[in-house]
């Protein structure tokens, strides 16, 4: 038997820590770093879904996280390349 | 609270599984008006915007290009249909989904234009629309957690607990943001400075009707 509660609370904490890091963590002035930090929060949410046994939602979340990251990186890169100040 | 006190007598229902659409004089009126407008949009041409040119005597004609026209017409017709659907839906989550769809379509209708100010307000509005997913879906699911149902017919018979009120407040905030009423009006109003009058009218129409409908739904849920 594994402790579902342990993973659940850890997931919540990870999500909160991740979102704190995304919001005010070190070096988040760089959009790349900020996007990285959202990954932590999303892994936390994955753990929450796992402990709720929402496994299909978990699969979808994992897949979409990758794609969202891809989209955000693309936007960041293009904006830097254009020299736009946003 | 019953449907009857708000929108008049129940004229009929359309059961689609757990989602039951219902028709009252109010929703029928809104539905028909939206369909009429959608039809008009589908057959309309766009106008030419005439503007004075700086430092010259001539005018500038701002027109909608053919490609842009097709794209925007398609999106506005879908937006009209979606708002018409939102008028008769009888399910809380279904309604929030319609709102999300209308939000993304509103952005889409103005996204094809060239004016940077319009694009800027479309972007800002898009940010609000994305943030609105939390109050809308979250509010609906808090109501679900508290009452155990999403159907308006069942919800209208239940008393309101503080939790339901909180969910309804969240939903109200989402609706206010998504339909761009004061004090959040600026991001949406600035989108209307682009040519293409038949298309932008549906943006305005859908948001106003969504407010009317949201009033009904919130009253149903709360009382």
């Amino acid at each position, binding site marked *: 038997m594994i402790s579902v509660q342990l993973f659940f609370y850890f997931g919540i904490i990870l999500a909160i820590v991740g979102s704190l890091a995304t919001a005010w963590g070190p070096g988040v002035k760089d959009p790349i770093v900020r996007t990285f930090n959202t990954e932590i929060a999303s892994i936390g949410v994955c753990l929450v879904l796992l402990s709720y046994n929402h496994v*299909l939602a978990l699969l979808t979340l994992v897949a979409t996280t990758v794609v969202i990251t891809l989209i955000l990186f693309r936007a960041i890169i293009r904006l830097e390349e254009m020299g736009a100040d946003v | 609270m019953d449907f009857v006190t708000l929108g008049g007598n129940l004229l009929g229902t359309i059961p689609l599984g757990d989602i039951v659409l219902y028709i009252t004089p109010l929703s029928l009126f809104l539905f028909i008006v939206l369909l009429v407008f959608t039809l008009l949009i589908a057959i309309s041409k766009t106008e030419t915007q005439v503007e004075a040119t700086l430092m010259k005597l001539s005018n500038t004609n701002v027109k909608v290009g053919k490609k842009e026209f097709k794209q925007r017409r398609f999106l506005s017709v879908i937006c009209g249909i979606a708002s018409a659907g939102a008028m008769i839906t009888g399910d809380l989550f279904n309604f929030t989904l319609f709102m999300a769809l209308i939000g993304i379509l509103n952005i889409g209708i103005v996204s094809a234009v060239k004016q940077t100010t319009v694009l800027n307000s479309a972007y800002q509005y898009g940010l609000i629309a994305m943030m609105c997913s939390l109050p809308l879906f979250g509010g609906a699911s808090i109501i679900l957690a508290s009452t155990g*149902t999403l*159907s308006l017919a069942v919800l209208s018979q239940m008393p309101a607990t503080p939790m339901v009120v909180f969910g309804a407040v969240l939903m109200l905030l989402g609706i206010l943001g998504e339909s761009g009423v004061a004090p959040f009006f600026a991001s949406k109003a600035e989108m209307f400075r682009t040519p293409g009058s038949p298309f932008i009218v549906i943006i305005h129409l859908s948001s106003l009707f969504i407010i009317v409908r949201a009033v009904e739904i919130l009253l149903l849920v709360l009382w």
Partner: protein
Amino acid sequence: MKIGKIWNKLADPKTVPRLFAFCLGIILILGLFVPMALNPDQLYTRPAPQVQIDDGLPIAPYDRGGVVLKEPGIIKAQFPENSKELGMITGYMSPLAEWVSSISPYFGTSIYSSPGGLIDEVLYYTRGFDTILESSILMMAFIIASWLAINYTMDRRDIEKDLKKAANDSANVAREIKINDEKARAKQLRRDN
């Protein structure tokens, strides 16, 4: 006349998302003081976490009872009278899914999300209209994005034109330099002679 200034600030599109976010944050934090509890009387209930996988069921977290194609599973829908075949879809497995379920007890998720899963029951059968909407949202967003990408942000025809022009320019410059060089050389030669 301070209130006038505040009102003018509200008319700037850039402040609006931030204002909205601020209002949202305030309401969310007020939510901490609202008494909240989950109503146990819910639709489409599921067993407690890890119960089914500990029991070693082959289609673990999504087994809702019933015999394939014979007996409906246990599903609690809002309006059962609107869905005649309720529970039958959970009792159905595609041949591929049956084969996978005979191999290992640890592939329940995959099996039940393939055609005939519980999620299909909820997504397509009882709440199919939601699915239509959600996938419409997806489709519209992609239409918008791909239209913009094809027609504007990724339009490579202009850049090709630019590149050609630049190439021509540089060729012209090179030619001019060459001509100038030859002229100079000719002059030099003449002077030398």
